[in-house]
């Protein structure tokens, strides 16, 4: 029985090769897209799942109240971890991490490595597994270090026999390797390359012992069976209790939420990357739906040609069940073939997709989840696509067909039209989204940042750079290739340090206002091309300006009416405002500029900014800069980036969305067009006789083409009418997330509609023109 069904299905698929190819291609594209998205979603949702007992591991962020609103910070005071462990019995482990950059030297091998100072509990909280050594004894000695296999390979070229060996560190005593741990998996939030005892760090920095400074990452692991909510409440009570300050609280952030739900608003989770996971899952479903619709449409359209055959079969006693089984077999076979093609496409496209999403996704047919997904999606597509045609066709009544009382197809024709409209609604929404996302990115790219981001090199400050700054500056100017050199305590785009509790003349309730502050050298404002709107810049001798500050316009605004220059801002000391600069964009590049104050000084510098003279090849300048730095800071390798490149990384996510939406919009449209292509062929075929008659009576090719196109044009117009408000709502919501955004432009909708119509027009025209050009005598030979 099944053999027979499959036989007939194969024969049908072969006989209608054209339609089968359209169906299989469409479905294969759909399944491929869905699988790629699945792999990505799987990777996203499995983030940090390598942490043992993941449900018991938490990060401890801090909420602070400003102007009646909680703001969440990823830094906590040094003593918090120990206090949590001591005060809350359910906290089984508690540990801290502090990020640090160290310059390691082994033999001639010098590497600059980013790693962590950590508490011993960190090993257990993150489940780091030792290849050599163990967690208990690793940190017994303050000068010990635990490194990963990768770091070991980099330093020693081997993983074996290195425990006990020394690593030399710039400006401090050598560290002794006490253990080697496995490398961190790719999809974890916290990656390790080396760990040193936290005390090694805190013994030199006494301020780490107080509750005044938030600078560490605190992690806890609860005892099995702990009531998370109860523990969270206890954690929230602890800071007010220990510091008598009820404007801040610590709380628990589950490791399951680190990656996907890490956006906080007023102290509670409001989302995060999970939105993209949901968005792309939805897109996968829509693309599959569009592909299934093709099968349904082409199958019912084709089946009407076979209505007679079905009538005869039924008259001969074939049961409804067999007919349904026949159809389902055919759709399942089609879906299976599509799945086969999809697997090939997957292997072909995965490297490109990985490149795009910057992941290392792999397909594993030994992984049950992947196999189940593929089989599941094939089954669902096969059944979903085949069910409707199966029931539709098997419900034909033989007598009706023979007598042609009800022309077969009435209900199917309207459903078919509805389904085409559905496909095009999705496609048009995709087109509009693609356009809007693209425009928004162009918009932010061309935002006036308040400074000139082009042609500025950014170099991290390390080693002797601060000590030798004057000579460095001098030597760089001597090159004749640079326009300006300066330093800043923050990266130009980062939010940097902030403080509150300041007061100033003309300000009201100033204690609650968060003010960002940076220490700069006098050339900084000129180097970045910022504009002084009032007052003056710092003088070249920073000592003269140690009690002077320059503020941004938004800060000046907080001082009320009148000139801000000359006013006093009170922080640890009284500072005098000597200048006001135009607001500039940093932190949230879409957001408004928050107030900033610049202090004069280079001791805190963390980045060197060099503006190059225009029109000189960058390669040449960089080589010269490197020589200068090698001379004055020989221990450290030369590292640099360009400010405009840093800017590009700020909307990486938006660019990724833009690229993905372009790709999936293209696929959706392509699949819709495959269906439209098939249906237009079918319509042309079905109306062959009518076309013949019309041509006999003198109709022109254009007339016939219009006749065939009109039918579809109407459907696409309906799709546009429905799609536009949907897209409008969705995208205005998306744009709400950006303070600096484009306005919804009406012509975007017009262009999207025009694109849809044009694509449909081209698709349909192929068959319409073919049909119209046919000699009428060929079409009429139906007797």
């Amino acid at each position, binding site marked *: 029985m099944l053999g027979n069904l499959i036989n007939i299905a194969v024969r049908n698929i072969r006989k209608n090769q054209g339609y089968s190819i359209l169906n299989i291609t469409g479905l294969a594209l759909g399944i491929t897209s869905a699988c790629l998205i699945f792999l990505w979603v799987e990777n996203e949702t499995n983030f940090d799942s390598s942490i043992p007992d993941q449900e018991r591991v938490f990060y401890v962020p801090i909420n602070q109240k400003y102007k009646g609103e909680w703001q969440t910070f990823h830094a906590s005071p040094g003593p918090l971890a120990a206090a949590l462990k001591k005060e809350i019995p359910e906290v089984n482990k508690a540990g801290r991490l502090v990020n640090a950059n160290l310059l390691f030297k082994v033999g001639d091998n010098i590497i600059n490595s980013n790693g962590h100072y950590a508490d011993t509990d960190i090993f257990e909280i993150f489940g780091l597994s030792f290849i050599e050594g163990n967690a208990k004894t690793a940190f017994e000695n303050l000068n010990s270090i635990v490194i990963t296999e990768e770091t070991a390979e980099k330093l020693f070229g081997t993983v074996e026999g290195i425990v006990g060996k020394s690593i030399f560190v710039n400006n401090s005593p050598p560290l002794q390797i006490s253990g080697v741990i496995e490398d961190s998996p790719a999809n974890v939030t916290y990656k390790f390359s080396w760990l040193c005892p936290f005390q090694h760090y805190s013994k030199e920095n006494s301020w780490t012992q107080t509750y005044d400074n938030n600078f560490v990452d605190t992690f806890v692991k609860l005892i099995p069976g702990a009531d998370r909510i109860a523990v969270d409440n206890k954690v929230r009570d602890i800071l007010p209790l220990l510091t008598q300050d009820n404007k801040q609280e610590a709380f628990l952030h589950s490791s399951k939420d680190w990656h996907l739900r890490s956006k906080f608003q007023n102290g509670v989770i409001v989302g995060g990357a999970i939105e993209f996971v949901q968005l792309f899952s939805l897109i996968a479903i829509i693309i599959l739906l569009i592909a299934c619709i093709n099968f349904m449409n082409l199958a019912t359209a084709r089946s009407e040609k076979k209505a007679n055959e079905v009538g005869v079969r039924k008259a001969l006693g074939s049961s409804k069940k067999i007919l349904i089984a026949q159809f389902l077999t055919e759709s399942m076979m089609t879906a299976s073939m599509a799945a086969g093609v999809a697997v090939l496409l997957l292997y072909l496209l995965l490297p490109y997709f990985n490149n795009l999403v910057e992941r290392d996704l792999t397909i594993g047919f030994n992984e049950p989840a992947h196999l189940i997904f593929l089989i599941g999606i094939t089954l669902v597509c096969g059944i979903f696509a085949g069910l409707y045609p199966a029931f539709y066709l098997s419900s034909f009544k033989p007598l009706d067909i023979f007598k042609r009382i009800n022309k077969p197809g009435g209900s199917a024709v309207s459903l078919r039209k509805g389904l085409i409209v559905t496909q095009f609604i999705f496609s048009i929404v995709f087109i509009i989204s693609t356009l809007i996302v693209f425009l928004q990115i162009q918009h932010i790219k061309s935002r006036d940042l308040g400074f000139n981001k082009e042609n500025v090199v950014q170099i991290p400050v390390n080693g002797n750079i601060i000590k030798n700054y004057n000579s460095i500056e001098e030597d760089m100017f001597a090159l004749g290739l640079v326009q300006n050199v300066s330093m800043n305590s923050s990266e130009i785009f980062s939010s940097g340090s902030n403080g509150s509790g300041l007061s100033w003349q003309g300000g009201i309730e100033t204690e609650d206002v968060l003010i960002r502050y940076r220490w700069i050298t006098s050339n900084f404002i000129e180097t970045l091309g910022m504009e002084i709107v009032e007052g003056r810049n710092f003088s070249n001798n920073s000592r003269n300006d140690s009690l002077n500050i320059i503020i941004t316009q938004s800060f000046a605004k907080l001082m009320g009416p009148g000139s801000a220059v000359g006013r006093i801002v009170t922080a640890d000391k009284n500072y005098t405002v000597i200048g006001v600069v135009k607001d500039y964009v940093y932190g949230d590049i879409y957001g408004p500029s928050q107030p900033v104050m610049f202090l004069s000084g280079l001791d805190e510098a963390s980045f060197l900014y060099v503006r190059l003279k225009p029109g000189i090849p960058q390669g040449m300048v960089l080589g010269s800069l490197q020589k200068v730095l090698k001379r004055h800071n020989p221990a450290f390798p030369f590292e640099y980036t360009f400010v405009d490149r840093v800017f590009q990384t700020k909307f990486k996510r938006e660019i990724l969305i833009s690229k993905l939406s372009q790709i999936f919009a293209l696929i959706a449209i392509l699949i819709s067009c495959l269906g439209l292509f098939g249906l237009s062929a079918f319509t042309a075929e079905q109306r062959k006789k009518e076309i013949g008659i*019309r*041509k006999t*009576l*003198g109709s022109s090719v254009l007339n016939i083409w219009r006749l065939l196109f009109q039918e579809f044009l109407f459907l696409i117009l309906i799709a546009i009418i429905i799609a536009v408000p949907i897209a409008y709502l969705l995208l205005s919501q998306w744009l709400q997330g950006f303070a600096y955004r484009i306005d919804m432009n009406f012509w975007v909708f017009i262009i999207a509609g025009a694109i849809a119509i044009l694509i449909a027009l081209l698709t349909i025209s192929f068959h319409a023109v073919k049909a119209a050009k046919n*000699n*009428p*005598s060929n079409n*009429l030979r139906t*007797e």
Partner: protein
Amino acid sequence: MIKITDLEKYYSTEEVRTIALNGLSFKVKEGEFVAVMGPSGCGKSTLLNILGLLDEPDGGSFLFNGIEVAGFNERKRSNLRKHNIGFVFQSFNLIDELTVFENVELPLIYTGVKSADRKERVNEVLERMQIMHRRKHFPQQLSGGQQQRVAIARAVINRPKLILADEPTGNLDSSNGNEVMELLTELNDAGTTIVMVTHSEHDAKYSHRIIRMLDGQKVTENVLADFKGI
């Protein structure tokens, strides 16, 4: 009006090459009523398609009103066709989705007649064909005889000089068939040239002349009535 000389037409399918017309020659004068007879497959329909400019010959000459049309492109043929030639088919070839009125109106749309004129002319023809009361019906709701009357109405609506009829009574019973033949005779009396393919000796008797074909060639010609011309 029509002069064909050594007309040839082939059909090539994958395996075989069929010779549908093999050096056929004859003339039809203006106002004449000619019947074409012959066994099935001898090339009658093919001949009619070429005469009706629905298809091109592969060889020979076809003078229509003294103009060589054998090499005409589709646009020229279409133009000539819609102003000069009307068709009546065995299977009526009405468009199922259009009403009787709309079917008859169609040729007028393609020749660019204005809407008001169209209405008047269609009503006039429907009146003449005695199917005015059915003008809002769809083809499937009519009997075969009625459908063929609609088809004839549509064929004459543009007042063509030539009507080509391919077995017009083939799907009709004898009384309906006779009615159709009466209508064609009336049109011919009014001056329309008619070339009709038929299997029926009875129908052929309505014509002035019978051309008998076999295997794409003319075998004999019988003159039935004195055609005096107009």
